């Protein structure tokens, strides 16, 4: 398969990534969110694998594998369990209503593309045009963390942000060294466990997963 097809395919996957990010912004149910997160991980893993194939960067295969295992299997499974155990699969009430969030998201995407333009011209990779999408994913995930008020959605937002960062690294410089990526993956796992345990603790203390109640912890 010639390189042009590879690029087309990577661009398609990148567009999918962005689409999923928007879908996550508008998704109200937590189980749906987790599914979307798993799909985002799958798209990311596939994109990375194609980059590895087309450029011959073998360490990216490991990254792709790691992403597949962690973000498509382990983490969604963990989240499903968490949602079930905590019984929080209710409607998530966003702080800002969803249409407004989508509009802000569009503004962020435009901003991210503008931002990425000068950088992507400097980058020497085949897939530099996708850098804007990667940054947009980071910003959209951040926005999701801001607008949602349940602890689990924040954790998912955090993980999605990590997806975006990973994609940005791949598209700008063919990914970080493997050691760094392993370290990041470990960090993410630990963050996941800590946040998972904390979610239980939050529910124990406040009888709810809503972070609004944490306001009462503020020092007067």
């Amino acid at each position, binding site marked *: 398969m010639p390189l042009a097809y590879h690029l087309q395919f990577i661009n398609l996957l990148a567009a999918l990534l962005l689409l999923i990010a928007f879908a996550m912004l508008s998704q109200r149910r937590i189980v749906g969110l987790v599914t979307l997160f798993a799909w985002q991980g799958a798209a990311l893993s596939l994109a990375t694998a194609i980059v590895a194939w087309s450029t011959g960067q073998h360490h990216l295969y490991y990254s792709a594998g790691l992403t597949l295992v962690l973000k498509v299997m382990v983490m969604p499974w963990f989240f499903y369990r968490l949602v079930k155990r905590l019984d929080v699969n209710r409607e998530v009430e966003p*702080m800002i209503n969803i249409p407004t969030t989508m509009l802000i998201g569009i503004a962020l995407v435009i901003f991210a593309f503008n*931002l990425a333009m000068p950088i992507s011209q400097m980058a020497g990779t085949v897939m530099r045009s996708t850098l804007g999408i990667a940054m947009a994913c980071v910003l959209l995930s*951040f*926005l999701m963390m801001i607008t949602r*008020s349940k602890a689990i959605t924040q954790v998912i937002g955090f993980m999605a942000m990590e997806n975006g960062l990973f994609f940005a690294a791949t598209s700008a410089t063919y990914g970080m060294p493997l050691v760094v990526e392993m370290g990041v993956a470990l960090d993410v796992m630990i963050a996941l466990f800590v946040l998972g345990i904390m979610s239980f603790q939050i529910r124990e203390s406040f009888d709810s997963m809503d972070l609004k109640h*944490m306001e*009462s912890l*503020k*020092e007067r």
Partner: protein
Amino acid sequence: MTNLLTSLDPVDWAWAGILYWLGLGFAALFLQRSRSLLTNLVFPLGALGALFIAGVGVAGLLAPVSTSVLPIGLPDLPFHLRLDALSAFFLLLLGGAAFGVTVYAIGYFRHMEAGPLAVLTLWYHLFLAGMAGVMLADDAYAFMVCWEVMALSSYFLVTTDHDIPDIRSAGFLYLLIAHVGAVSLLLCFGVLQGGHGNYTFGYMRGAALTPFWASAAYLLALFGFGAKAGLVPMHVWLPEAHPAAPSPVSALMSGVMLKTAIYGLLRVTFDLLNIQLAWWGALALALGLVTALYGVIFAAVQSDMKRLLAWSSIENIGIILAAFGLTLIFYTDGKGALAALTLTALLYHSINHAFFKGLLFVSTGTVLHATGTRLMGQMGGLIRIMPWTAWLTLIGVLAIAGIPPLNGFVSEWLLLQAFLLTPGLTQPYLNMVIPVAAAAVAMAAALAAYVMVKFFGVIFLGQPRDPALLHAHEASWPQRLGMVWLAAGCVLLGLFPTQVITWIAPVVRLITNQRLVNDGNWLLLAPVSAERASYAPLIFLVVVLVVLLLTFIWVRRTYHGRLRRSDPWDCGYPEQDARMQDSAQGFGQPIRHIFVSFMRVERETPDPFDRQPQYHGATLDKLWFVLYEPIARLTNWLSAQAGRLQHGHIQWYLTYSFMTLIFLLVFVTR
């Protein structure tokens, strides 16, 4: 072995002395069980260390400059040490004063519990080591480390009785101002290294700063060292910290630690900076005079004896700083000989103050232990109960009041001589203004004498104002010995000024490249020319003694010679009792009346028909309310404003990060 010993420079001996003190301090931690070992072994050994350091100081004054690089410190950043005449002089000052104070401390701390005493012993020796380290340091890093060791250990010494809330707040104030000053010094060294990242003093000496940056460094140094020295308006910690600290600690802090600031100021201004400007001197002179007058006025109205001495320390630092300013003025004007004279006066007064203020602080410690109070209003007549303390204190009091033939007179006389020689300056304004400054110094000296009459008179003379005083006890032998050493220092420094000046000469030569010409001989001190002014303390002493003897003989022989005993200060009234004597408050009343605009006076006077009248009066520093409280309020307000950002919503915090991220992204892509 002898080869090794002779190959050691004075600087090696000096840091060996520092290590010895550190070792003693940490050894004390293992003696937590035994109070007698701590007081009877560790403190005497510490005193020997002080004597050793003084000896190293003498050796350093005589020997050429010696340097050493210690293998301790951060990687690639070892401690550089250097012992030149300036360091050596201050080491001599430290060792001399610390010996007397430490010997005194043997007796003073005898009644403390062993556990706290062990900790105090550690801090005490760390404090001594820190001060010696400051004087030896030859790079900014070592200097700041030693400076902080000194500041922190003295903080813990001040808060020895930390279960008393007032002492905790006094300690906090001290720590706060010490650190504001330390930050300023850090910035000063940052300017001094000239942007090359080399922080050794040897490099700073060679760095060529522009007048602007040199002035910035000087101002930062003046602020930083001024905060440590007690320059108005950074003086507020002294009257709080000195009464809070145990007396030997107050003696060291006032006598020696304040001098480290003077040392640092001299080091930075004359040694490290490549240029000096005349206005720096004028500024230091003005600040010094304000400090001297402010200090002495407040000293006059105090009724707590240690607070009085703390204010008196502020006054003395003011005089030293005025001398520093005058030295700078002469130096920049090209009058090397006059700069040498002023610098001699400065250094002389520094060592004098170390001895007489050390003596007075430890004697207040004895009085405090004997009477259990610091309030002079409850004392009186102690000269008959504790004669040793009283007579030794009298020497210190006369010395600080500038009475010949004691040491305080010599340095103040030298300084006034320098002031009287200013008409030679090329700057017309300074020419006209400085005689006024001389008048201010003279007034500060006169008021200091007034303060000391009050101090001695109210505590030791008259009749006991409290019957409990009759059970007061005299100082123990180590205490007496320490006081005798310090008093002997006052007497000897006063009687042999020509010899002292030859000791100071290497320092003066180092800084001004001049030596003070003594036009007299070994007996006669004549700093400029013998025709102009000269002073011979030994002859003066002989004349005083002869006159005293003749008067005594005359009174006993040719006058009626009858002996009649009566109560002191009863002024011939048979109904006079102790409560009718002039009190500490009464003594300060005229001064308070004249200078009321600097003070906030709070008074509660009793009703005339009150059967049990209670009088309460306090004279407070107005600067506290004018300067410090607004700063505190502003800080509180600003933090309350910053506190509004804290909502407690995690979403808000995320938004803050998000906004920052967006802002930074926009900022970097511009």
